[in-house]
């Protein structure tokens, strides 16, 4: 019996190549069915892969976007909304709170460019935006550095911005396309220009940023920080900012998840079709066994047939979905999730996120498909050929 088992194993391995050739030949017996199955799986992987990749990419991008944001952002509020705060005094008051490591001010706001609203930022080199502006020259008065998504008017060397007043800037540089979306629609100008454009008086700032030693300390100092200022303030911690961003993204990406419902139905149809096809041809299994094929051989053949279709189909589907989400210039995710109409910033995917998507695709699509394809071999395992010849 042991000898027989060893012979069986050797024969199984040696038999693999002719069985592979036969499996491919067998698929061409039903070319239309094979092509349709390939396209169905590829399309399904594309739909579900796009939804899952987008979800992962949004999380990863949010993580990058907010990684270098300050621990706490303090804004002065009034009955009409927010108002500028006195720069020097705010820094002094913030630094008086125990636990505060650093405090600084920002001058920023929204202005209109010829192509739509942009974020104007008073850039003095103290804000690195996570290294994005490392090699960017400091703008002098009347100069501007544009984010990748900002387009100029007719003259590509100058940009006219209209806010509290109208100013024309000479463009001295533009951030690369691959920079984070944090700087995507941003115009970096001299702080004094920013204040003038946004109507913020000299010595005043849009908000105050506070850094603490550790993120967990941020929430602990909020009440002390609030009490330190003689005017009402609204504070946002780094953790809250991430939460707001993710929940906003999740709300929008929920629309994408709706695609999973028809996707699952399509998968059920594919699995049912494969199983039905296998049942119709189950008499072939009886013939194979009667002619000396073992259950292992039949299993190998079914597995190879499934893989010959499944692996390229899943690969094509994943490549297409990856291209849809991450291809440079792919505009629909930016339009759908952030409202950018042109020159969208790239989304990011980390390795663990991509791996997770692959695992999800395997569990959602590949395993049910494989199980359906291997069903005849599983049935054959304990049956005599006559059972199939009579079916």
């Amino acid at each position: 019996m042991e000898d027989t088992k060893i012979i069986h194993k050797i024969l199984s391995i040696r038999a693999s190549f002719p069985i592979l050739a036969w499996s491919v030949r067998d698929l061409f017996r039903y070319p239309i069915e094979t092509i349709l199955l390939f396209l169905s799986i590829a399309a399904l992987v594309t739909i579900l892969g796009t939804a899952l990749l987008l979800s992962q990419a949004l999380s990863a991008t949010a993580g990058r976007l907010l990684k270098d944001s300050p621990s706490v952002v303090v804004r002065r509020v009034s009955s009409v909304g927010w108002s500028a705060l006195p720069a020097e005094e705010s820094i002094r008051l913030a630094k008086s709170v125990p636990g505060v490591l650093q405090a600084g001010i920002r001058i920023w706001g929204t202005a209109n460019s010829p192509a739509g609203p942009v974020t104007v930022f008073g850039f003095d080199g103290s804000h690195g935006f996570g290294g994005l502006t490392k090699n960017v020259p400091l703008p002098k008065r009347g100069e501007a550095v544009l984010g990748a998504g900002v387009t100029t008017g007719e003259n590509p060397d100058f940009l006219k911005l209209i806010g509290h007043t109208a100013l024309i800037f000479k463009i001295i540089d533009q951030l690369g396309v691959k920079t984070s979306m944090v700087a995507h629609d941003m115009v970096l100008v001299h702080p004094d220009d920013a204040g003038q454009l946004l109507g913020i008086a000299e010595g005043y700032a849009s908000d105050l940023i506070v850094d603490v030693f550790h993120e967990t300390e941020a929430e602990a100092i909020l009440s002390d920080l609030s009490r330190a200022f003689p005017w009402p303030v609204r504070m946002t911690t780094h953790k809250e900012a991430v939460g707001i961003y993710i929940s906003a993204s999740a709300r929008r990406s929920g629309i994408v998840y709706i695609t999973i419902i028809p996707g699952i139905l399509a998968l059920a149809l594919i699995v049912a079709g494969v199983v039905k096809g296998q049942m119709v041809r189950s008499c072939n299994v009886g013939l194979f066994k009667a002619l000396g094929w073992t259950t292992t051989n039949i299993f190998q053949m079914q597995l190879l047939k499934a893989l010959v279709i499944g692996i390229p189909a899943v690969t094509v589907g994943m490549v297409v979905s990856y291209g849809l989400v991450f291809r440079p210039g792919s505009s629909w995710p930016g339009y759908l999730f952030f409202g950018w109409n042109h020159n969208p910033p790239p989304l990011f995917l980390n390795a663990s996120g991509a791996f997770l998507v692959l695992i999800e695709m395997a569990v959602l699509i590949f395993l049910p498909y494989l199980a359906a394809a291997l069903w005849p071999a599983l049935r054959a395992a304990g049956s005599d050929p006559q059972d199939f010849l009579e079916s």
Partner: protein
Amino acid sequence: MSLSIVCQNVSLFRRRADGSERAILKHVDATLNAGEGAMISGKTGAGKSTLLHLLAGLLRPSEGQITVAGEPVSRWNTVHRDLWRRKIGIVFQHPRFINELTVLENVILPMIPRGTSITQLRNLARQALEFFGISHLAKQNVLSLSGGEQQRVSIARAIVSRPAILIADEPTAHQDDEGAALIIEKFVGWKLPHTITIVAAHDPRWAQSGKFIDKHFLLEDGRLRKLQ
């Protein structure tokens, strides 16, 4: 131990629609040795095909056992029975093919899992077709053949792997005299000292040829009786 097939008290029951059991084969005892050609005759529905399927390992007896070279093959598990079937070449009463394939591809079928190269497989299949004078049909679809041609393809497929045991169910059923004579002649040629050949037929031409039959059994009412 030399090749021999022994049926010991083999019975097979089938369940009817009303739940009762009907005996298809009753207490069949027979011994076939290497080098022998055996013929099983009997009326239509006597159970000849069922007995051949039992001998070919396509189903298991309800009672009794079948031993080959002293090994109880009818009691082996599926894995070992799968391997055991490789020693057998079978010709079905109604030729069974994979309809979408050519004659050559159908003949290759038993050899595919045996680790032979594709070129060698083709050569073996062509030899088997030539043996029965039908190599010119190699590229045709099996469904385009006549009943007699299909039966010859079926026999070519059964012998392509040079089995130790050849089992054929009515191999001359669709043949004219010339075709039947060729098949009988080939079966006589297949009778080698190390092979066992079993034919179920009620075609009198087998008996008339006088060359093939070493043992002749008659199957009547599920019971096997040795005539010769």
